[in-house]
C-alpha cells in the first residue's frame, strides 16, 4: 500500500463509506442549523419565517440557560470527581488477590450494564423515596426524619446516581492500568524505603496518569449529554435545579414545541462541547503523548 497508484485506489475504495458517514453526520447537523434560524413552533403552524439570530438571542438570555450551564458543569465535575477518586480506590482494592475475586469483580462492573432509565428509576423508587425507599425506612426505623432526596438535594442525588453508573467504567480502566504496572518497580521502591503512601504517590499515580486522562475525556463527552436520569427522576426540577443543557433543549423543543429555539440550543450545546473538548485536550492531552 505504498505506491501512488495503490494509495489512489485505496481512497477510491473507502470513499463510499466515508461519504455515507459524512452524510449521516452532516444532514442532521445542517437541518439543526437551518431550523435554528427559523421561527418554527409546532403549536403555531405558519410560514416558518427566517428570523436570523433571534432564537439564539432568546435562548441565551433565558434565565434558565445560566442555571442549565451551571448545573451541567456541576454535574459533570461532580461525577468526574466521584468516579475518578472512587475508581482509583476500587482499583486498588480489587487489584489485591482475595477470596471470590472473580465474582466481586463482576459485581463491581455490573452497574455499567444497567440501562440509565432503569437504574435511575430503581434509585428513585426503591432507595431514595422518603416513604417507600430503603433509606427512608432506615431513617424512620432509627427515629430520624426521612430525607426527601430529590426535593432537598436534587442535583446531588442525580450526581450520585450517574456516578454509580460510571464508577464501574472508571474502575475497569484504572484496574487494568494498575495491573500493567511492573511489580519490580514497586518492589524496587519498597527496597528504596518508600512507604505505601509514597509508592502510591510516586510510582502508582504517575503510572495511572494516562488512564485517568482517558477516563476523564471519555466520561466528559458522555456526561455532557446526561438526560435519561434527569427525565425519570426530577424532570429538571424543582424549578431548574436539575436542568442541564441537554434537558433545556428538550424542554424548548418538545415541551414548548419550539423547534427553532430547541435547534438554537442544540447548536450552542455542540459549540460548548467542542470548547470543552479542545480545552481538555490541551490541558491533559500532553499526558497522552508522553
Amino acid at each position, binding site marked *: 500500500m505504498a505506491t501512488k497508484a495503490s494509495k489512489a485506489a485505496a481512497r477510491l475504495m473507502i470513499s463510499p463509506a466515508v461519504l455515507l458517514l459524512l452524510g449521516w453526520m452532516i444532514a442532521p447537523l445542517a437541518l439543526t442549523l437551518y431550523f435554528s434560524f427559523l421561527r418554527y413552533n409546532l403549536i403555531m403552524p405558519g410560514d416558518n419565517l427566517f428570523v436570523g439570530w433571534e432564537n439564539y438571542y432568546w435562548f441565551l438570555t433565558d434565565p434558565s440557560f445560566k442555571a442549565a450551564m451551571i448545573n451541567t458543569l456541576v454535574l459533570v465535575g461532580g461525577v468526574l470527581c466521584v468516579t475518578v477518586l472512587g475508581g482509583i480506590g476500587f482499583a486498588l482494592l480489587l487489584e489485591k488477590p482475595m477470596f471470590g475475586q472473580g465474582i466481586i469483580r463482576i459485581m463491581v462492573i455490573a452497574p455499567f450494564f444497567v440501562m440509565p432509565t432503569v437504574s435511575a428509576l430503581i434509585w428513585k423508587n426503591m432507595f431514595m423515596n422518603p416513604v417507600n425507599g430503603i433509606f427512608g425506612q432506615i431513617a424512620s426505623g432509627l427515629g430520624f426524619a426521612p430525607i426527601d432526596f430529590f426535593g432537598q438535594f436534587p442535583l446531588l442525588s442525580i450526581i450520585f446516581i450517574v456516578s454509580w453508573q460510571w464508577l464501574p467504567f472508571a474502575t475497569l480502566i484504572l484496574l487494568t492500568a494498575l495491573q500493567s504496572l*511492573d511489580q*519490580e*518497580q514497586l*518492589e*524496587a*521502591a*519498597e*527496597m*528504596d*524505603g*518508600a*512507604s505505601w503512601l*509514597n509508592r502510591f504517590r*510516586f*510510582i502508582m499515580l*504517575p*503510572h495511572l*496518569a494516562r488512564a485517568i486522562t482517558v477516563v476523564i475525556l471519555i466520561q466528559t463527552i458522555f456526561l455532557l449529554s446526561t438526560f435519561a436520569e434527569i427525565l425519570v427522576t426530577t424532570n429538571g426540577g424543582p424549578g431548574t435545579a436539575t436542568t442541564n443543557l441537554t434537558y433545556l433543549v428538550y424542554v424548548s423543543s418538545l415541551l414548548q414545541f419550539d423547534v427553532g429555539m430547541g435547534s438554537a440550543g442544540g447548536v450552542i450545546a455542540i459549540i460548548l462541547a467542542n470548547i470543552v473538548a479542545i480545552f481538555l485536550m490541551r490541558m491533559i492531552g500532553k499526558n497522552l503523548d*508522553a
Partner: protein
Amino acid sequence: MGRIQLKQVKKSFGECTVIPPLDLAIEDGEFTVFVGPSGCGKSTLLRLIAGLEDTTSGMIEIDGTNATLLPPAKRGLAMVFQSYALYPHMSVRKNIAFPMKMAGVNEAEQTKRIYAAAKALNLTDYLDRKPGQLSGGQRQRVAIGRAIVREPTAFLFDEPLSNLDAALRVGMRLEISELHKRLKTTMIYVTHDQVEAMTMADKIVVLQAGGIEQVGSPLELYKTPRNRFVAGFIGSPKMNFIEGAEAAQHNAFAIGIRPEHIDVSITHGQWQATVGVAEHLGSDTFLHVHGVPGCDPMTVRGGGDIAVNHGDTVWLTPDPQHIHKFDAEGLRIK
C-alpha cells in the same frame, strides 16, 4: 559491615517447597555468586534475603541482628533487578535521588552523592534523560547508581547482565567487579552464567532444586567438585563422564575428565576415537569425538592449530592427575 547469615531458612509457595531448609553464611565484604540451573530458586533465595518474600521458617541474620521479620527498607540492602526496575516517569537524576528522598537526606547531600555516583558510572551526560531514552547498559548503570547512593550494607544483584549483549556484558562484568574492589561492600550476585560466576566471585554457591550443592571459591569448585552435578556445572565446555569398565579400572562408578585435560594426538594414545564435529575457534579447537567406551560424545580441547576434521581418527590420552572419581551416588571419591 555486611555479614549475612541464613539459618535453616525454608520457603514454600503453598504446598510446593522451593527451598528446603538451608544454612549459609556470607562474610563481610565478600562477593558471593549464586549459580544454578533455571528454576532452582536463586531469585527466591535472593528475595528472601532482601525481604521481598517472607520465609516459611528459619532465621535471617544481618550483622548479627535477627532480620527475618524486618521489612525490606529496614534491612539496609540495595537490590538491582534483572529488568532494572527504573521509574519510567522520573529522570535519571530523580531515579538516583529517590532512595535518598525517601530516607530524608538533605538536598545538598543528595546532589553531592548523585554527582559522585554519576561520575563513577559515566552517567554525567545523561542525568536529565528519562530511562526510556537510555540504552540497556546505561539503564543498568542507573540501576546500580540508585543502589550505590543509599550506601547499603550489601548489594543484591539478580541476573543484572542477562538483558545485555555479549560485548556489553563483559564490560559491565568488569565494572561491577571494579566497583566491588573499590567499595568493599558485601555483594550477592545471582546468575546462571558460569563464566560470570567464575570470574567475579570470591565465593560461589551452587544451587540445585533449592538446595546447596557446594560452597567454595571458584578454583575449589573447579578442582574438587563435591559431586557430579557441580563437576558438570562448573567449567566450560562441560566435564566428560565415563561410566562402565573404564571407570571400574579406577575403582569408581564414574570418572570425570575435563576437555582441557585430555591430550589429543593423531598418532598414538590411550583411546581411539572418530571426530564428529570440530569447532575451530582460532585459539582452541573443540572436538566432539565418538567411540570412547562409556562416553559418547566426548568433548576434547585441542590446540588452535590442530588440523583434524569430520571423520578423522584421533588418539586421546587423559591426564591422570586430573581424573575425578565418583561413586554410584554421584559423590566424589577422594
